[in-house]
């Protein structure tokens, strides 16, 4: 597991914080955990705890901890932003990030499909209503496969169809 603060080192400690009904977990490497400890020590001293009641503060050198924007109700995974590095922990994480995911994915990729006209996602069936499209697909396959005689025959067929349509 990668540290969720620096996203570079391996995580060695998991912190769990409870705020009201919200539970957040954060996996951290030792360096980031030490930095968080220093911030907490400073906070305790600011609240009036005596110096001898807390450990000797060391200078912080790294990013401080922060509460995440979302926490998944299923796996407890926290999220700050959605990008190519974001990892979902379970199916419920998608409910947390649905709004951000809709913004990331361009509108044309999410247009509503007409159930009468939509093709099943796993359709490899040829399209009988569009012979030209089929022929072009087979031509591309033949060229990639370096079956040039077959490609030439397909090219002639396509030319014939295009003439008929014109």
């Amino acid at each position, binding site marked *: *597991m*990668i540290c969720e603060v620096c996203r570079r080192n*391996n995580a060695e400690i998991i912190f769990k914080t409870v705020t009201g009904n919200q539970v957040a977990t954060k996996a951290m490497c030792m360096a980031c955990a030490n930095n968080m400890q220093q911030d907490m020590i400073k906070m305790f001293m600011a609240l009036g705890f005596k110096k001898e009641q807390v450990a000797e503060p060391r200078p912080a050198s790294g990013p401080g901890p922060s509460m995440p924007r979302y926490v998944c109700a299923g*796996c407890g995974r926290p999220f700050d932003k*959605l990008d*190519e590095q*974001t*990892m*979902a*922990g*379970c*199916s419920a*994480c*998608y409910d947390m*990030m*649905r709004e951000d*995911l809709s913004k*990331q*994915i361009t509108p044309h*990729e*999410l*247009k509503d*499909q007409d159930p009468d006209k939509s*093709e*099943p*996602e*796993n*359709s*490899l*069936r040829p*399209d009988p209503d569009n012979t030209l499209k089929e022929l072009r*697909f087979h031509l*591309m*396959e*033949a*060229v*990639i*496969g*370096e*079956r040039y005689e077959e490609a030439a025959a397909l090219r002639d067929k396509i030319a014939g169809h295009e003439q008929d349509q014109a």
Partner: protein
Amino acid sequence: MNQSILFAESTLRRNYHNLQFCPQNNREDLRKSAGQSIGRLKGALPGFKLVPFRGLSVQNLPFTQQLLLPYELAKLGKLEDAYLVLDAEKALSATINLDEHLVLKSRGAVDELTGLTGKVRELENSVSDPNFPFAKDEQYGYLSYRPLLAGSGLYINLLLHLPILHYLKQIYPLIQMMREQGLLLRPASGYNSKNPARLFILSNLSSLNMTDRQVLELVQKGALQLIQKERALQEKALNGSAHSIILDKLWRSYGILQYARRLDANDFLVHWSGLRLGASSGILPVSLKTADSLLVYGNDQVFREKEDQPNTFIFQRADAVRLMLSGG
């Protein structure tokens, strides 16, 4: 078979609805995922062979398996509860808990791509179990640990050899061009490495709201563009003067592979790339089939199975390559 495309792979990425996603997070869920998948795959794959990755690092995978994995897995170090499942002919395979819970794969020549996709769909039907449904969402389709990969889960990978484009530093503008078309073109050995073999992987960026046919068309179209550019540059680079630098490099690579007594993996891949270019263009007296069969020596894994002395691998590699090329 296309000379620039070594092989094509049709993959389906799946996670289980009731378990936390990969990679390598919740140990208990990883074990459950492995149990569910192995059980179904045993019935579905003839001549089933299970390769556990316990304690192995990603670098110890067979070379072409390693090339096709996401880069961030290399940072995970040792893998646990992860498996590779192969059928007897190694044409159908599945990885368990390497990135998704289950990635079903069908590999073959690029002109069999439609057939490969059909086979991986049949495999999916064989392993599907209504008691352990895959994670699916009405809006986004099958879910991935990477939210931007949600969709039908069909990803086509083509392994391309583009030596002249790489040599002339033409690849990075092409990466951008492919991205604009919805394709991912990446160096096979990582963005920060020198990519000694000059191998690249082309795949679709997304499978959201796309039929299988649309995915195939998209990837094939992108591949054609790359192959045509590589072909055009090869003709200019290799048909010119007999004293050209590139021609000299091809013959040097041939000589080194035929006669070297020590070959580390990086050295081997650099010269393998030259050998393959020479074989595909008919300049070197080596068949493309022989050149491609040498790629298995791209990392140390093949020697690790027989011998446990890493310091001998450079000699074993050189011996094996000389034997294949009938060198002295």
